[in-house]
């Protein structure tokens, strides 16, 4: 074949700008680091301040020294809290409430989400929207009517609900179930229809399709919902404040506030220590479950 001269494109003499892609990328990275560090500082300052304060004695906290520095570090706040039966009771109540609420929420939300996303029945669409709307009603609107309901329940049945820690097992799911159901409807809806049809043909019942196909495939969604339910029940403040009063029935957030603030005396060192220790369980759970949360398990189910 003859050699064919390809005409040089216009401006061919100029040096090509190789590497401009990677230069753009480098700048994008710099900016993202800048903003990420900014955000991290902003959100980490309060816990750092809590940590610093928790290591001080009451005398040092009230002294007019640099509040961002510990001159005489001490663990007395930690020892004091962890050896006090009261704090351990709060912790135990919080743990029990959270574990039970997560379990109850999952037991209700998973089948509900499965039914609402897969079984088409009369009113299923309206019901799905209804579930979401329930979540939009703030708890500040609900605690008074709930309180009244429990009082009436007590009159009728003689069963005392108010001022028992387990009343929270009835109350918290009103917050967690709608949201978790809603998240999982989304996850279940993203599972291709053919997958449950294949399971149906393979001989699986609805329950088997749920347990053997949907739950494993939507595991990241389930974990997201679990984290949410745990966080809500661990950190909830208003409901336990309204429904529980005796110190042996309190959960952590309310317990810390009601027992460590005596009149106008704020035991800041212990308050900070209690809050810091209280924040640990959710952190640990996050750290363990994040990997699952991110994993894309549905890859490969269908042509992707």
């Amino acid at each position, binding site marked *: 074949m003859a050699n064919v001269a390809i005409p040089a494109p216009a401006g061919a003499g100029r040096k090509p700008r190789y590497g401009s892609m990677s230069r753009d990328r480098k700048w994008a990275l710099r900016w993202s680091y800048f903003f990420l560090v900014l955000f991290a500082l902003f959100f980490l300052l309060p816990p750092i301040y809590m940590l610093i304060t928790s290591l001080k004695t009451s005398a040092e906290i009230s002294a007019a020294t640099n509040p961002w520095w510990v001159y005489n570090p001490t663990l007395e706040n930690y020892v004091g809290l962890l050896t006090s039966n009261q704090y351990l009771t709060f912790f135990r109540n919080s743990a029990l409430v959270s574990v039970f609420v997560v379990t109850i929420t999952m037991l209700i939300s998973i089948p509900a989400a499965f039914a609402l996303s897969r079984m088409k029945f009369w009113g299923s669409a309206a019901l799905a929207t209804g579930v979401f709307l329930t979540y939009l009603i703030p708890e500040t609107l609900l605690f008074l009517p709930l309180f009244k309901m429990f009082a009436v329940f007590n009159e009728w049945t003689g069963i005392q609900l108010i001022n028992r820690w387990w009343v929270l097992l009835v109350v918290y799911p009103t917050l967690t179930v709608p949201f978790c159901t809603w998240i999982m409807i989304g996850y279940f809806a993203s599972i291709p229809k053919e*997958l449950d049809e*294949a399971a149906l043909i393979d001989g699986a019942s609805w329950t088997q399709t749920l347990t053997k196909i949907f739950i494993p495939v939507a595991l990241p969604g389930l974990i997201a919902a679990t984290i949410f339910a745990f966080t809500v029940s661990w950190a909830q403040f208003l409901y336990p404040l309204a429904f529980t009063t005796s110190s042996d029935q309190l959960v952590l957030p309310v317990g810390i506030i009601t027992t460590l603030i005596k009149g106008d005396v704020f035991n800041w060192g212990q308050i900070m220590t209690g809050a810091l220790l209280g924040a640990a369980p959710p952190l640990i759970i996050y750290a363990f479950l994040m990997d699952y949360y991110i994993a894309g398990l549905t890859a*490969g189910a269908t042509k992707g």
Partner: protein
Amino acid sequence: MAEVRLRKVVKFYDEVEAVRGIDLDIADHEFVVLVGPSGCGKSTTLRMIAGLEDITGGDVLIGGDVVNDVPPKDRDIAMVFQNYALYPHMTVEQNMSFGLRLKRYPKAEIRKRVDEAARILDIRDLLSRKPKQLSGGQRQRVAMGRAIVRNPKVFLFDEPLSNLDAKLRVQMRTEIKKVHQQVRTTTIYVTHDQVEAMTLADRVVVMNGGVIEQVGTPHQLYHSPATRFVAGFIGSPAMNFIPCQMEEAGSNLSVRLTEGLSFPVPPQRADRYRRHTRNGNLLLGLRPEHITEAGHHIQPGEVPFEARLDVTEPMGMETLVYFPLSGTQVCGRVNPNAGAKDGAPLRLAADLNNMHLIDEATGRVI
């Protein structure tokens, strides 16, 4: 294994009638392909046989039993889906054995069946992989394996090759045919690709607008289509439809296309067409391969004519030529050495022994 029968099967989606009362008998061991354009009701029909859609009216029988209200798992069928629908969290082996494990088959039996299916499909090396580690073709094999291990009465395929690239599709087509030759299970296969239908099927069911247009062997559909739709749907390039009129001069019958062009009808076909001489809405149906370059010896039934070509498409083993005739674009297939050029005249011959005459009003082939 079993035969499948549809009796006046109707399907309504709210107000829309997707399937309008179809009757179909599928024999034991038969490979039947439902083919048609999208929205013709072929997938709906398949899903009604599978039990994934309720039947609005009529009966579906599998192995002689009416299964209208039988849930899918009790119909003893297996289905292969267009997007494979493999369980993403299970290995290939677990995917294939899932149905058997649910039915609590003994472990040894499951192992035996999975190995056998893996051997047939040549996927023994993949058994411990997850679906996301497989290519499209491999996933499709696993989906077929999942169907085979169940040893069902009927295999249902819902456009199984549509997600594969062209080359792999041809390869998997052959695979499916081979598998059917080995397993011999009654198979119902849905596709919109007429080539797949022709190559795979013992019998093809052509559907359009929720009704069956024609049922027949690939040969029957190609050479004696019953309707204009079938004639146009089967075969590529499609059959030419040229507006025409019948003219009778004494005992001779001829097809008039334009003022200057009329083709004499071969005597063996004349009797069939004679009573349509007054019908004004006729179409002459002629496949491209029956319009070729005119040779030195004109065979009986062949009619030579002159055409000015618009476009030529060299395909290698043949050249497709397009030219206007009686107000429509007509396609012919000529020898690559016939000298066909864009814009140039060419002497062609129409083989009227293979002509079809279509009543445009009814859409039926006369």
